């Protein structure tokens, strides 16, 4: 068993879990933060994307013990009450249908906007599509996801 100390959505948590516990399992099963989803087992679909120490990662491909000591933000903790501009943009632009890929899309969207803003690069439609390589959606055809991220980028 591994003792895992983490700050999740601003709160310190500590759990003793099997060493094999993935961060996604830790969030879902130990903390019951079930907004982080698991849609594949080869690290490709991106439904599990959360931020660890400010960076988007695939929580299904990270051991909880390896993240120990870090700060984790999940879709549940993205906004302090209300909605984060990215969440609002997904609502405003019909950027979701079944909602399963949505938490990962939103977390990847926030990460990409932050990175582009930090480096002063323009987040074009082509760039958004390229940046979404690790997030698969089966419902929306990406059209409105791309619009949502474009919209949020102007408001973040």
């Amino acid at each position, binding site marked *: 068993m*591994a003792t895992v100390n983490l700050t999740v959505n601003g709160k310190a948590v500590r759990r003793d879990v*099997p*060493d*094999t516990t*993935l961060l996604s399992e830790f969030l879902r099963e130990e903390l019951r933060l079930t907004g982080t989803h698991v849609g594949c*087992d*080869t*690290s*490709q679909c*991106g439904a599990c*994307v959360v931020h660890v120490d400010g*960076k*988007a*990662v*695939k929580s299904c*491909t*990270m*051991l909880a*013990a*390896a993240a*120990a000591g870090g700060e984790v933000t999940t879709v549940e903790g993205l906004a302090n009450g209300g909605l984060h501009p990215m969440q609002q943009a997904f609502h405003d632009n019909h950027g979701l249908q079944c909602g399963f890929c949505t938490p990962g899309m939103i977390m*990847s969207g926030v*990460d*990409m906007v932050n*990175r582009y803003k930090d*480096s002063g690069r323009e987040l074009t439609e082509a760039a958004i599509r390229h*940046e979404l*390589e*690790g*997030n698969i959606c089966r419902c929306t055809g990406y059209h409105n996801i791309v619009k949502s991220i474009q919209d949020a980028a102007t408001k973040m």
Partner: protein
Amino acid sequence: MYPTKYHKPDSLEAASAAMAAAEDGKILAGGHTLLPTMKQHLAAPSDVVDIRGIAALHGISERGGALTIGATTTHAEVANSAVVAAACPALCCLAAGIGDPAVRHVGTIGGSLANNDPAADYPAAVLALNAMVITNRRDIPAEDFFDGMFTTTLEDGEIIKAIRFPASECGSYSKFPNPASRYAMVGVYVARVDGRVRVAVTGAGEDGVFRHDGMEAALSAEFAPDALDSVEISDDGLLSDLHGTAEYRAHLIRVIAKRSVATC
């Protein structure tokens, strides 16, 4: 996953000790291959030794145009490094094209090389740039490091500390991604190092990354895309699968190599 024991040592010595004590230990340097493999029960190491807590294995430095990149430096760190961009911009482009953004935040150069996936990108750079793989036991020249698909000459318990890339006059990496996995189906790194042209091909070979003598000779004679038109590119020893026959890969090697030369 089968049960395993997770270790996160803060020194190479401790990492070596953990590996030595393990019945069947595996180094974890990013985990984007190891963890999915464990999830699918295709690997079941008794111990997993995470080397990302070892400060000495992380970071990028430059001296006289030569780059030393610590084993646990992530793809994103390489892609965004001003030092790398100045010394070897093609390496930034290569790192920026590995996997997706979330993968790049976690995957590391050492992990990629130790795994030696035949479709990984970094082996092409390491071989084309004639880099040195520095381990806790020795320095291994690129030519001696790769030893077939998913195999290297690393010994049991040997841990990559860093990769040293010599100064290069120019270089360029282009790849053709597999439509499903987006790994390289053909990736070609063209470089000029010490006045010599070196061409390394990843994604295509049954034994992993390889250099192509014919293309190197043609480009040494004339460094231009069209110089590759008459080079014979055999499909012997090339991978053949759903997304690319050996014949198609042989064709793509030329096309992608020309694109690399054009942007070099």
